[in-house]
């Protein structure tokens, strides 16, 4: 029993990182209306931004969050200008290929600029252990869950209590109607895209801290996980996507504990396929869009 509780904690820690990536992903897809394969590279660049902040400025967790957040924000603008802005009216496979190209571009540039080797990630908080309700967890796991929760809360407040958020939601629900209502759709989409990317960038920092390492090719599989989680959540709904991320983290870890670790990705995908067969729109309450 203790064993399964330990595995569930592993799953929750990993799942909450997936959740943050998936929230970012769903915000992007929501406002832009186009899927992206660049999210993994945005995550990686966010992690590198915080790595350099830790190395050259100081090992402060808030500094890392700020560095990751703003670096990904600007990368988000770049990606938006190149991959989305021109293609709102085009068939979606075009921007999809554009994001695949962009992902290759960023990954290869990162290998050239940062060096292709794995680097040790500075640890801004000390490793300690606490007992929570009889379960032993470490401070890094607490940090992850705390950051994920506060960023999600922040997003919730922005979405529901500010003018900005209302515009964002309007655009992600119906661009045509929003434009008719006088909302600057392109600007809103660009900001929304950057918000999504920034969440991804912070997730990248957390991942690098959690695994204590950083690598230019780390983005590929993470981007796919974010994508899968967001699809589970119906692609555009942040909270449902977060749930999707948590579930994928749990399924992976529990699956690993029963079968071999080599099948890790298979568990996630089989779960995804099953959910989509039963409920083609994922967990989203919304039907159609």
């Amino acid at each position: 029993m203790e064993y399964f509780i330990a595995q569930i904690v592993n799953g929750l820690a990993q799942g909450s990182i997936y959740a943050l990536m998936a929230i970012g992903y769903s915000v992007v897809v929501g406002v832009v209306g186009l899927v992206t394969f660049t999210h993994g590279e945005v995550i990686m660049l966010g992690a590198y931004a915080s790595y350099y902040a830790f190395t050259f400025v100081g090992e402060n967790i808030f500094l890392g969050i700020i560095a990751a957040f703003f670096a990904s924000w600007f990368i988000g603008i770049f990606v938006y200008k190149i991959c989305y802005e021109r293609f709102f009216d085009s068939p979606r496979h075009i921007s999809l290929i554009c994001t695949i190209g962009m992902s290759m571009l960023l990954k290869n540039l990162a290998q050239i600029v940062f060096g292709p080797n794995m680097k040790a990630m500075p640890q801004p908080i000390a490793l300690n252990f606490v007992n929570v309700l009889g379960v032993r967890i470490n401070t890094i796991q607490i940090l992850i869950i705390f950051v994920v929760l506060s960023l999600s809360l922040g997003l919730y407040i922005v979405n529901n209590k500010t003018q900005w958020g209302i515009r964002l939601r309007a655009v992600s629900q119906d661009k045509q109607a929003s434009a008719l209502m006088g909302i600057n759709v392109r600007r809103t989409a660009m900001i929304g895209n950057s918000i999504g990317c920034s969440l991804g960038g912070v997730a990248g920092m957390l991942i690098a801290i959690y695994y204590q390492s950083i690598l230019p090719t780390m983005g590929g599989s993470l981007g796919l996980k974010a994508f899968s989680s967001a699809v589970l959540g119906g692609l555009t709904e942040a909270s449902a996507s977060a749930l999707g991320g948590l579930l994928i983290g749990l399924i992976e870890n529990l699956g690993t504990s029963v079968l071999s670790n080599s099948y890790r990705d298979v568990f996630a995908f089989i779960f995804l396929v099953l959910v989509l067969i039963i409920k083609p729109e994922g967990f989203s309450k919304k039907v159609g869009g």
Partner: protein
Amino acid sequence: MKKTFTVLTAILLVLVLLAGCGSPAPEEPADPADNGATGDAETYKFAVLAPITGNYAEYGKGFEVATQMAADEINDAGGIDGVMIELEVFDSQGEPTESADISRRVVEDDEILAVIGDFSSSNAMANAPILGDGGLVQLSPTASHPDYAGMNEYMFSIMGRQDSEAPFFSTHLLQRFKQAEAVGVIYINNDWGESAHANLTRQAEIDGLNIVAEENYVEGERDFNSLLTKVRSTNPDTLALIMHANDVALVANQIAQMDWDVDITALGPGTSMQIIELAGENVEGLLLSTPFHITEENEEAWAWAEEFRSRANFEPTVHPAVAYDTVYLLKAAIENIDGEVTRDAIRQELQDLEGFVGLTGPITFNEAGDITRLYLIMRIEDGRFVQETDFDYIDQ
């Protein structure tokens, strides 16, 4: 409609005719020997196949830097009997299709005398038939598939066969030296890891070593928490990690994050400073087997590592060290050639080479074209590698 069919039948007819007439002109040369370059070339040119871009770029860069280092050293010392070495680096991206295309290209480039690489076994094995037909040596530093070198007489590997390292690891490191009582094995699920794991467990069964868990993972995995939790539930006192430097560091870090007190041993990473850089005090006390060591005591290797670091900007692992040796191996082979330096003569002399001692230890090829190495046991202490046993430990 009918036209298309007429055309199709016509094509088929022509095809049959063509095929019947015999194969087209650019067949492989009947005798590979007369395809080689001549000895009066101004330089000896070798092709280096490495994943310069893609997911293995880290290893590709190590290859590129290490082979160039060796070539520069040789050229600075006057080349091979006054003839300079030239390396041409090709990016195989870690993809067999790319690598095979490059192989066809270098076979037809008469200037190229031998191929160094490719990094992964998949690539090296996809190249084997092409290079074999073309009569060109493929000297791979790292291809570790047990069947690779035997594919044809032109294939060589100096990674060291796992049917010697893994049994050594089991009998001497785990059982004799470490006196492990319950071992949990974690191995990478690729040809090398699979082969090392099979050899280790076979030997453990013979020796009566108690293995309580065997788990594998796919290349590129970063989260070992659930896997470790699983292994932990079987209560091993020692973990045997069959994986490369980066993964050893990741695992060691995650063991520390779990607050798990277990002894770690590693097969594969060698004395790479990268482990210590990535995992710091989490790898204190780690035991590993290695054919050679890069420590301050081993001056030659230490100087080599310094130079590598300054060129590549990261710590060397085993891979660049073996890549470095391949250039010297080719040099030694060419020096032994009496007459004309041809592709075939290089193959012959590599096969017959005796008494070669490189950075990574003595290298003598067996009939298949790979080598059996001897191993040391090293321990990490205060952030440094310390030698625990010598090569004669197996005889004691």
